[in-house]
């Protein structure tokens, strides 16, 4: 096992009449365990071009369709032009826009909602505005199968 921690803090002194300060730290564990840390990780950096199409940033694994495997995903838009953003989607449902400089961290359930091996829970990305946008991502996962696409040749 490994020990991977995710720490969050958020602060604002002026969005309300009193300051907000939030913080939280979690350790990334396997499902159904008290303290067994996730042991597999994939990551990447890609330039996403405006093409009118979305792309699979992190494909759901067919092996995880019926599993209870646990995953966490971090995605960051490394662009600097504040007008630029990418849409992040799951199962064709837009979660939201990651503008330049934004990041997100979510738990991710790879289970295919229709259980038909069509990988509908892929995490997808589409650049909507601006030039190619550099996006960094990392996925921590628990799996009992090889977390790679099967080779076709």
């Amino acid at each position, binding site marked *: 096992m490994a020990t991977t921690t*995710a720490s969050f803090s*958020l602060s604002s002194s002026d969005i309300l009449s009193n300051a907000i300060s939030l913080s*939280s730290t979690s350790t990334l564990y396997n499902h159904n365990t008290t303290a067994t840390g996730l042991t597999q990780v994939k990551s990447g950096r890609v330039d996403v071009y405006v093409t009118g199409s979305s792309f699979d940033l992190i494909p759901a694994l067919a092996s995880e369709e019926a599993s209870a495997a646990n995953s966490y995903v971090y995605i960051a838009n490394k662009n600097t032009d504040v007008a630029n953003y990418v849409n992040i989607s799951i199962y064709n449902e837009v979660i939201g826009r990651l503008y330049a400089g934004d*990041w997100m961290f979510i*738990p991710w359930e790879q289970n295919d909602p229709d259980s038909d091996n069509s990988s509908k829970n892929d995490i997808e990305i589409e650049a909507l505005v601006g030039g190619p946008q550099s996006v960094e991502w990392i996925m921590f996962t628990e799996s009992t199968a090889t977390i790679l696409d099967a080779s076709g040749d």
Partner: protein
Amino acid sequence: MATTIATITLSSADIMDNSISISNTATLTDAGNDTGVTKTTGLSRVTTSATSNVVLLDSAATGGLEAQSTMTSGKVFIQNLNARGDGSKYVTVLLQAVVIGRLYGGDWMFFPWQGGAGNDVEITPSSTTDTTLEYVAFY
């Protein structure tokens, strides 16, 4: 405008041969500019024993947050305040009917939220054990 800053640090000394340490800071801004977000739901806390869907954030144009502002650059933070226990209990977080993932006791998530019709943020607890969550949206 206001200045609201969110920071993440991901670290592991042993998931790979070399350690991982990722840090990032984002200033929450309105869509397409560098003006800080000015609206928030404020921090909310809910305890539920329901095992059916519970709406945390209603994005509807009538009666929901979308009635106050078009939600093109929203951000949401949710944390499960329960203890991890045996690791079998969690809440499933959904955008309406689409599952995002599971928040186990002690877990948190932070994500952009487009809002709009059909994009309520919902949870489904995995058991009838009381689950306590805190959550906040900025937009």
